[in-house]
């Protein structure tokens, strides 16, 4: 029969199923395959906090969202063009975000009485039969049955066969989007190499899904999404936490010192620990500590010992680490503290994203305790952010907080990665034995107010440091009132001085003067930039600036803000950067806050901004 191929510019697919259905893997494999096809893309995994939430329920739905296209893709997409629903609950919880006329691929085997009841459909109602899906293109497949049939001869239990049904779906999508399957087969071979029957079954199911699309008359159209006009070069796909891992290792290599990572497992930061633990051949020392406090304290010990010391956590762990952060600040030792933010307060929403630790990072310690704070703005940007945080910590002898969040930590995008030789070295100077009998001043400072790094074991530099107030210069314990005030001021001046060693704030889009500036930080980069690009096309005089440095701010920030009548600050929190900007620059801003554990969508931000500008 004749099958036609349609060209599409961009597509948003949502994979949704039970948390045991393997949707994260399916999504990841489809993403990797998409990246190889040259499209630009952005992803957003969304899964329940429970490892295996009750099967078939709405609470147990695990989703993976992928937006790809032949143009620049900055967000994972507001609404879905294609939904893969493995059961009734997956359909119900995602239907609200389907574009009109979009496609729903359903596993009809996931719509039996039990599944419908668990998804809280009223007795006797089946959305596949009651007309509620009119207006959508619904592709029904008995995925469970078809997978079992394709594996009829496989020496596996029914349960094991059912685990392959995500591969059947993946195969079908590869057919639908005209893809090669080699990369997935390679991946499966590596994953199941030691279990040949399982490997064989997964490949069989994958191919069965592909052939099902090809041979069944029901499916007449295939789609092609062409390569995006990305900058020339070599690309890879990268997730935020992965880019952070690579960035930290790169920083240590460029500084010529070992990397120490102390951490305690916490969502969504654990993957940084897992990632770094795999790179022992780079000399990476990972230490899974007994708690968050031990994790940062061990890092402080390693920093004292001359390593690039890093600790990573999320909001609740940040709260636990605060006293030790104060110690690192008092000791004036380099330390990078990565906070992969999630919904708070307290345990909050462990698997949902939020930007609500900004004030904690800036102010959440006892005493006058200034600390540089940086943020990463996209999955690939975590690499640059990690390098920059490490550079500041090492060269300015200070703890530094790096803010990422669940959205970019688990999200992925293509990354035009650099060559090692093109990445600048990070110069680190350890204090050497004093010459000519000069006394060593542990708290002596250079013109940047930075003290020297004197590592235990160095001849002639034996000295004591600690959390008690220091006498300027000698570093001895001092209760002198004037000295304390001096030290408070100098610690602040040291952090503020960093502004001279960071780039000026640039615009990501828009004119240098205009009606409104969108000011953002962290994971809202993609959505703000794409809203601003669209509004510029529509004739609005708007621009976008995205902050890497939240303390100190870039030195030109005030002047830059003064070039716009209105400052719009979109954040996934209750207005934290807005507070800081108002306080710092005494100027009114317009906050746009969403606190629902999910990213801001283009549509809602664009609607809000237009209302502000026209209202």
């Amino acid at each position, binding site marked *: 029969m004749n099958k036609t191929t349609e060209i599409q510019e961009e597509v948003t697919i949502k994979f949704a199923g039970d948390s045991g259905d393997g949707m994260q893997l399916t999504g990841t494999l489809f993403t*990797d395959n998409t*990246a*190889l096809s040259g499209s630009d893309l952005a992803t957003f995994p969304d899964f329940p906090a429970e490892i295996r939430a009750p099967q078939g329920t709405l609470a147990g739905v695990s989703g993976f969202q992928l937006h790809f296209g032949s143009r620049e893709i900055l967000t994972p997409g507001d609404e879905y063009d294609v939904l893969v629903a493995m059961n009734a609950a997956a359909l119900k919880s995602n239907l609200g975000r389907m574009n009109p006329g979009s496609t729903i691929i359903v596993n009809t085997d996931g719509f039996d009485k039990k599944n419908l009841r668990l998804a809280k459909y009223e007795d006797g109602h089946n959305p596949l039969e009651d007309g509620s899906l009119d207006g959508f293109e619904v592709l029904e497949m008995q995925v469970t049955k078809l997978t079992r049939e394709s594996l009829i001869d496989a020496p596996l239990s029914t349960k094991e066969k059912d685990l392959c049904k995500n591969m059947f779906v993946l195969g079908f999508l590869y057919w639908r989007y005209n893809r090669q399957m080699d*990369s997935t087969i390679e991946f499966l071979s590596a994953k199941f190499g030691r279990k040949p029957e399982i490997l064989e079954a997964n490949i069989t199911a994958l191919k069965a899904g592909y052939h099902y699309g090809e041979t069944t008359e029901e499916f007449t159209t295939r789609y092609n999404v062409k*390569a995006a006009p*990305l*900058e020339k*070069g*070599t*690309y*890879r*796909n*990268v997730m935020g936490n992965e880019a952070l891992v*690579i960035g930290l*290792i*790169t920083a240590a*290599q460029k500084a010529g010192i*070992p990397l*120490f990572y*102390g951490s305690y497992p916490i969502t969504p930061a654990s993957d940084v620990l897992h990632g770094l633990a795999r*790179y*022992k*051949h*780079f*000399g990476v*020392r990972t*230490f899974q*500590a007994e*708690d968050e*406090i*031990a994790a940062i*304290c*061990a*890092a402080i*010990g*390693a*920093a*004292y*010992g*001359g390593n690039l*010391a890093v600790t990573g956590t999320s909001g609740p762990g940040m709260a636990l680490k605060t*006293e*030790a952060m104060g*110690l690192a600040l008092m*000791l004036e030792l380099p330390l990078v503290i990565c906070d992969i933010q999630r919904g708070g307060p307290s345990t909050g929403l462990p698997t949902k994203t939020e930007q609500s630790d900004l004030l904690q990072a800036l102010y959440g310690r006892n005493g006058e305790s200034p600390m540089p704070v940086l943020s990463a703005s996209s999955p690939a940007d975590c690499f640059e952010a990690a390098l920059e945080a490490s550079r500041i910590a090492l060269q300015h002898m200070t703890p530094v907080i790096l803010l990422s969040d669940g959205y970019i930590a688990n999200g992925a995008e293509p990354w035009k*990665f650099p*060559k*090692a030789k093109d990445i600048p070295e990070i110069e680190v100077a350890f204090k050497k034995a004093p010459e000519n009998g000069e006394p060593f001043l542990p708290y002596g400072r250079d013109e940047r107010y930075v003290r020297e790094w004197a590592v*235990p*074991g*160095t*001849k*002639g*530099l034996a*000295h*004591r*440091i*600690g*959390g008690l107030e220091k006498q300027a210069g000698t570093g001895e*314990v001092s209760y002198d009132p004037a000295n304390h005030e001096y030290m408070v001021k100098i610690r602040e001046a040291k952090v503020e001085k960093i502004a001279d060693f960071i780039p000026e704030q640039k615009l990501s889009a828009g004119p240098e003067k205009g009606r409104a500036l969108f000011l953002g930080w962290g994971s809202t980069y993609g959505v703000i930039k794409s809203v601003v690009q669209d509004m510029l096309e529509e004739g609005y005089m708007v621009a976008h600036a995205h902050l890497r440095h939240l303390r100190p701010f870039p030195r030109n920030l005030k002047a830059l803000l003064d070039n716009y009548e209105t400052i719009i600050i979109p954040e996934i929190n209750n207005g934290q950067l807005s507070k800081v900007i108002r306080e710092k620059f005494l100027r009114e801003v317009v906050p746009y806050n969403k606190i629902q554990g999910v990213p801001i969508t283009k549509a809602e931000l664009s609607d809000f901004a237009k209302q502000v500008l026209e209202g």
Partner: protein
Amino acid sequence: MSTTNGTIQLTAKDFATDQDVRWCPGCGDYSILKQVQTVFAELGLDRDQVAIISGIGCSSRFPYYMETYGMHSIHGRAPAVASGLKIANPGLHVWVITGDGDGLSIGGNHLLHLLRRNFNVNVLLFNNQIYGLTKGQYSPTSEEYKITKSTPLGSLDHPVNPLAFALGAEGSFVARSMDRDPKHLKEMLRRCHEHIGTSFLEVYQNCNIFNDGAFFPFTDKDTKPETAIFLEHGQPLRFGKNMEKGIRLDCFRPQVVDLENDGYSPGDLWIHDETDICKAHMLSRFFDVPAQHKPSYLPRPFGVLYAAERPCYEDQLYGQLKQAVGQKGEGSLDGLLAGTTTWEIS
């Protein structure tokens, strides 16, 4: 410094800093400081190769008085700091100085994990059974019903037994000494240094301001012979003014016997074996309070209860670093940046 045979021999004074020591006059800490400085000199330690890490409390001021590297960190966390430092520089001699509150209350968790991981560090826990720096609240080692500022009707806490804790935490070296027996204390410090793995030494230390005499029954020369027993590897357990008493095992029950009147000879007694973990646990339970005058009173043991070799965390960590290089080769930064799958946009 004195020069003998062309090498520089440091003295105890060379390990003292120019800082005024600010413990209360008469504090047991002075004796411990002096013995540590003396032993470090006798061991010929290089001051630049020693790091002393403490938490918070009276004892934790220790680093300021030692002419070595040192860090006065935060309350209870010295074991964690020491772990990180030891990973960064395994060659350092790292000593953790802590107290009963710092090490067993706020920092109990970290002490537990330091001991089981078996980093090659030495922990000196100064036990004075009171909170001194905060002026006299009961501590986790204070006796039951102790009347203090925070417990006017008596503390309801059952005290922790530090040596039983250390053994329970899989400590590979567990010992006890006292501030008022310099010779014994020096010997124990030396043993701590020599042990490869985490050495845990509890030192009974008198706080003459808030808990004066807490350990006098064990340290006073009139009562000590009856209340304390000094352990020596390979030797029978004997005590008393004239070593006339001993401890034998009646099946699994330790029993005090009178060698002069009960018809037992030293050969019948429990022979101390530092490497026997079961017996070490038993010895740690010799925890009777002299003032209670129990007829079955077992004397409080001093010395090394347990010492055994077990691989150190940092050695194994470096082993894994080497193993990883052996398996995968030295990491290549370009390989790391590129990952497994790349594509070209041309």
